[in-house]
């Protein structure tokens, strides 16, 4: 335990040093002020991640709600993967033996049977077992495993069936500013801030300076390596805005998931589903005659096979493509979070076998390694989502200006390009 307190002190010392360094460097060199601040923030984030993780897991060992068994750790990880209605950073038990939660409540907005109801999530008092009932405008709400249920009239408490599904409550449409929505808002504001300042720089100078110099190559990369080659020189301009937005949105949210604030936005299936549906709508709406022609009446195959192929193509286009998009992002990010948290939990699981120092060192080394891989995955998944979106859009808008050759029976002979398209 002293070791962790030592870590904690060390962290504060580093923070103070960074702040001090920032202060002096600000005074001394006003030129590189911004970049130093940026790197200071980055460094602080990187330093906090493991320390914060240590804090939350280790200190929860004390007190009544401590997490020390494997089942509890698994529950804790699964709980983290889900969305929550309050912004919870850290919990600990103070000297008086009370459980203290550090964080802040978020507004809950519900569209239920009696219209819209709003209240702050603090009214649930961190309860997620459906015990605390919040009464507003004649509606009674409970929070059961992170989801808010509206109790039916006359019910006094949440009743569950054998499979732990609520029986006397309905789910209202939960439009709350949950942790994920909060993360989305932050990511959106960050993007607006970064890129509108980059846009404003171009009015003054030709080549941006400072942080804009980092952003500009990324924008060019998305445009020249993702949009242009996959969609085609003629039409890529129309879709570049969407692709850029999605790329940076996913990337920033993936990176936010690696900070100790514990966002898991791109690991929410609703978020990835919305992103995939956007891509689906875009390529369905902008699909040209050739695209639909190749789906419903594939040229170059025997007539009898064409209806079967049409079904396969239609399912592939409308369901499998967006499904693979949404599941890939969701699964990669969720898996990353599970692995990272499990490796941090080694500290507790193997404490009996390796002792506090050994288990902490092992956990620290492994989680640092996976953390670096996850940094790469954060970029890679943003890249792949954008890349595949661009590819699907490009397939929908591709122009077939080449003539198909006809064989002796008047059927079109598929050329290499068609075969390649079908394959993809």
């Amino acid at each position: 335990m002293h070791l962790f307190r030592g870590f904690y002190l060390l962290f504060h010392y580093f923070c103070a040093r960074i702040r001090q360094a920032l202060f002096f460097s600000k005074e001394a060199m006003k030129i590189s002020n911004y970049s130093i601040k940026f790197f200071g923030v980055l460094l602080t984030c990187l330093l906090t991640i493991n320390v914060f993780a240590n804090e939350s897991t280790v200190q929860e060992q004390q007190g009544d709600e401590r997490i020390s068994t494997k089942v509890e750790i698994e529950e804790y990880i699964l709980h983290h993967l889900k969305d929550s209605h309050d912004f919870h950073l850290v919990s600990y038990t103070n000297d008086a033996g009370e459980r203290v939660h550090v964080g802040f409540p978020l507004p809950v907005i519900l569209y239920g049977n009696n219209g819209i109801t709003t209240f702050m999530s603090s009214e649930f008092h961190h309860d997620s077992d459906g015990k605390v009932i919040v009464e507003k405008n004649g509606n009674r709400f409970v929070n059961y495993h992170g989801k808010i249920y509206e109790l039916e009239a006359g019910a006094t408490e949440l009743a569950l069936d054998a499979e732990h599904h609520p029986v006397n409550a309905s789910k209202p449409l939960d439009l709350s500013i949950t942790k994920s929505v909060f993360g989305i808002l932050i990511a959106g504001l960050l993007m607006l801030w970064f890129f509108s300042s980059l846009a404003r720089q171009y009015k003054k100078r030709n080549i941006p300076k400072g942080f804009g110099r980092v952003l500009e190559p990324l924008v060019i990369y998305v445009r020249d390596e993702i949009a242009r080659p996959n969609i085609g020189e003629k039409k890529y301009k129309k879709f570049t805005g969407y692709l850029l937005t999605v790329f940076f949105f996913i990337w920033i949210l993936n990176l936010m998931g690696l900070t100790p604030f514990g966002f898991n936005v791109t690991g929410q299936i609703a978020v990835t589903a919305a992103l995939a549906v956007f891509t689906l709508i875009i390529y369905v709406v902008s699909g040209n005659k050739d695209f639909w022609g190749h789906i419903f009446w594939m040229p170059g195959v025997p007539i009898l096979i064409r209806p079967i192929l049409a079904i396969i193509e239609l399912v592939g286009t409308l369901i499998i493509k967006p499904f693979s998009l949404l599941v890939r992002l969701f699964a990669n990010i969720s898996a990353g979070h599970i692995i990272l948290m499990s490796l941090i939990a080694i500290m507790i699981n193997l404490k009996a076998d390796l002792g506090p120092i050994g288990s902490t060192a092992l956990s620290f080394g492994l989680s640092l390694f996976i953390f670096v891989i996850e940094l790469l995955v954060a970029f890679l998944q943003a890249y792949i989502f954008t890349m595949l979106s661009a590819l699907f859009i490009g397939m929908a808008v591709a122009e077939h200006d080449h003539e198909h050759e006809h064989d002796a029976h008047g059927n079109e002979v598929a050329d290499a390009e068609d075969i390649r398209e079908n394959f993809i």
Partner: protein
Amino acid sequence: METMIPNLVGAGIIVIGAGYGLGKIGGSAMEAIARQPEAANKIQTAMIIIAALLEGLAFGALFLGK
């Protein structure tokens, strides 16, 4: 726990298949790059796309079974 066993076996088979596929993609891409180093960028892009499609398939199967 016993009801989980078929799922876990299925997951194992999926992972074997996906691993074989990824290995084949990676190996072929390496060979192709070694043969034509100047086309490395194009090969990498194609490799990532195919790997992503395979990964999507594998994840889809894993989550369908979950």
